[in-house]
């Protein structure tokens, strides 16, 4: 029997011990009317060989198109050691480290994870991960409302350059608690700082800024941070950790730095995998750590004085504080955070910098190649990290279709999220894209746009 070890003789011996004739008797507390005959509609069991064949067929069916799409998920190289180690049974099949003495492996990894995230973002403390970047953003907003003791506002000013998915998830998660997201407009691909003149920072619990923003551009982080702080609003910085290998981290934005930072951890060694599992990170200033949602690992000593690790500050969490907890989160993305920790350890600061730099160079090369075509222009002049917006002289969808049927994912069509940008496409070329790959894209694009390539 798959995954059940019992033999007939075990079963009889066990039933005899229980004094019942049949396993069915053990379900006798279920009201008779509720008992079912079984799961009609579920097919017969497949052997391991059969399910392997099936899944391989489906995987092959989907192919491996050349990816120039980013928009929140990035095609980076993941060293072999990362998942080889992360999927070792002892990491893979452990539960949450409730028994600290028997979970030092996971606990130490998470402590190291927290250290890395705090350092990358330039802030003090990190939690042990949240579900993904979008929920981390929503939790950051909730946290900011709880943490801002200067004003009692339930409004967050969010730049329209911030990822639409993050804004949508935050809307859903904030709605019940009547917290409102107020949108700050875009201009030239970045947050419109002039629009701040019509607003008062004091009206907001926090201001949320993404950098590089969803459109790939470097945003006005210093101006926005200082404006927010001037009115007693907190600052939530959203950042791709890969970009932080190069860019000024949220903790150093403006004069005082962001108060909270969060983001999507996927670029740190996590495969794109149709959208998950990824992990959200959340870091903050030391003084607001008790408003942090999610698990946190701390270092302490054992009764012999030897250092060891344990879950700590649990009084914030649902299993202790129940309806007054900082969040309902329980299971997080531990294994993914473990993989990210291994990835960051392998890469080091220099490895990350090298990847980040290559992404920047490749996207520049791609943008140059495409804007050389008639009908393709850059949408904005703002400097970008590894994504950029192109404007076409025709609808984006058709172009993407042609690319797709040539095995190329050409980018993310912005026309639904940002209709104001016209026929706009967000492209990305990570370190994985070779010069040949970029030429392949440009080649097909030149056929579409009718250039004399």
């Amino acid at each position, binding site marked *: 029997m798959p995954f059940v070890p019992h033999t007939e003789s075990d079963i009889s011996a066990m039933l005899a011990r229980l004094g019942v004739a049949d396993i069915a008797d053990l379900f006798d507390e279920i009201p008779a009317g509720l008992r079912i005959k079984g799961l009609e509609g579920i097919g017969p*069991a497949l052997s391991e060989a059969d399910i392997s064949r099936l899944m391989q067929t489906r995987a092959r069916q989907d192919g491996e198109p050349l990816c120039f799409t980013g928009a929140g*998920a990035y095609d980076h190289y993941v060293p072999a050691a990362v998942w080889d180690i992360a999927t070792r049974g*002892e990491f893979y099949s*452990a539960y949450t480290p409730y028994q600290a003495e028997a979970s030092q492996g996971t606990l130490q990894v998470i*402590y190291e994870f927290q250290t890395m995230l705090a350092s990358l973002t330039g802030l003090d403390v990190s939690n042990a991960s949240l579900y993904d970047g979008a929920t981390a953003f929503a939790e950051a907003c909730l946290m900011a409302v709880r943490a801002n003791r200067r004003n009692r506002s339930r409004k967050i000013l969010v730049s329209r350059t911030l990822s639409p998915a993050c804004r949508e998830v935050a809307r859903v998660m904030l709605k019940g608690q009547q917290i409102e997201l107020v949108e700050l407009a875009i201009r030239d691909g970045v947050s419109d700082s002039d629009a701040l003149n019509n607003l008062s920072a004091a009206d907001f619990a926090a201001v949320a800024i993404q950098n590089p923003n969803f459109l790939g551009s470097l945003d006005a982080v210093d101006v926005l941070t200082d404006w927010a702080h001037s009115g007693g609003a907190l600052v939530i910085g959203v950042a791709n950790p890969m970009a932080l290998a190069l860019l000024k981290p949220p903790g150093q934005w403006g004069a005082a730095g962001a108060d909270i930072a969060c983001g999507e951890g996927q670029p740190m060694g996590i495969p*794109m995998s149709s959208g*998950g599992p990824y992990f959200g990170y959340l870091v903050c200033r030391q003084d607001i750590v008790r408003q942090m949602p999610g698990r946190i690992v701390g*270092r302490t000593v054992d009764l012999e004085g030897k250092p060891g690790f344990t879950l700590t500050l649990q009084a914030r969490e649902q299993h202790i504080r129940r309806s007054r907890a900082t969040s309902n989160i329980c299971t*997080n993305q*531990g294994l993914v955070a473990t993989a990210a920790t291994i990835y960051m350890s392998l890469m080091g600061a220099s490895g990350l910098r090298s990847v980040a730099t290559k992404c920047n160079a490749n996207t520049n090369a791609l943008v140059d190649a495409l804007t050389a075509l008639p009908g393709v222009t850059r949408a904005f002049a703002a400097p970008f990290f590894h994504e950029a917006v192109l404007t076409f002289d025709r609808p984006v969808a058709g172009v993407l279709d042609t690319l797709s049927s040539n095995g190329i994912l050409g980018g993310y069509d912005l026309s639904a999220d940002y209709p104001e940008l016209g026929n706009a496409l967000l492209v990305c070329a990570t370190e994985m894209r070779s010069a040949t790959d970029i030429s392949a894209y440009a080649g097909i694009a030149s056929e579409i746009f009718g250039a004399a390539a």
Partner: protein
Amino acid sequence: MTEALIFEYRSEGRKGFVAGPDAVPKLPAEALRADEPTLPTASELEVVRHFTRLSQQNFSIDTQFYPLGSCTMKYNPRVCNQLAMLPQFLGRHPLGPVEHGQGYLQTMFELQEMLRIATGMAAVSLTPMAGAQGEFAGVAMIKAYHESRGDDARNQIIVPDAAHGTNPATATMCGCEVVEISTRPDGDLDINRLREVLGPNTAGIMLTNPSTLGLFERQIEEIAAIVHAAGGLLYYDGANLNAILGKTLPGDMGFDVIHMNLHKTFSTPHGGGGPGSGAVGVAERLKPFLPVPFVQRLDGRYTWATEEHYPQSIGRLSAFMGNSGVLLRAYVYMRMLGRAGMERVADFAVLNANYLMVCLREAGFDVAFPERRASHEFIISLKSIARETDVTAMDFAKALLDYGFHAPTTYFPLLVPECLLIEPTESESRHALDAFVAALVDIRDTAYSNPDKVKEAPVTMPVRRLDDVRAAKQPDLVWQAPGAG
């Protein structure tokens, strides 16, 4: 041997992973960071060695019996991991066109269907990324339902006192008020008390059945009737679905919405704390409110169901569609079980729990609800031992580690003093259960003969008992380079 921190392998000037020669970034100087982040500078061998050694410091299903109540620590088949990690699945961009995703989408569609059938609901969405997010989705749908009917005053969520902490926490997150109700001594819900609290403000009730006491709620049909009569909806916390898979359906019990913990019942790995998946199923009336996206089939083609098709949807709960990789693992597991295998899950989860309960009872342990059948888990209380020897449930838990067993859940549910909540799961053999009983008996004997020895435990782990108070009072949450603080 304790393992140094990865940062302590620091070696000035060591390069990390070799990614080839560097380009110069085309970025304005003022945007660049000046400092270097504190990341390790260990060699690849040091990294591999460090994390391999750390892994060995964990207990896990692959190495130990792990009867952690409410957590369903069953075997995670290796093939589920292998197939979820096929390169095309790993490499698929979440925004890739459906033409490059029919294999993946079909799989997700079939998973929705299997989960729908296994729970008796009308439709399923896979987006929630863990049980608690499934709960959020469920309560949000309940609220959206009432609001869609203009029934705006309904903002109370009823939860039993035995409920998992995520239930009340979720209600709060959704902006609801939590009304706690008590459990009767026989372990069933205090239905009179329920009647009292039901009213025009009732949004719904969150139950798990079997409950966290390991007991099947026998009055469930009556409860459903009176909650529905009062205008409320019923939420099923599916964390304990392992106990009833193929035996009875939450849909038949009258639940309007359910979340499933695929990382419990459907055997996706816990990974030291996650990722999980909290797929939600709903009855017909909540279908319009399901979180998007999910997968629909039209003319044999699989596409995304979005806000466009479900304008009343509560919206999105993740940037894309939840923890896909986890969903793939659950799919493989379910297909390998098939119908008969799924029905066997509850059979043997329940057989193992009852067997273990009876063995412990016969060995003289106090079972919390001796008159009741165990579901897939059960509770023993060590109150009398603690009174007589000063050896607590916590001490038992720590001592078990030295016997090579992970501890059961301790001190939950809160209403049973000095409790151990024990869930063996169907994948453990009788041999493992017998050995576990022997260990508990041995620890009890030691508690009476030499209590200090038990209170000293564990002694075979990488560390002795840790100072939790110090951890919370002087939080040390990130490593500081020496001289950097």
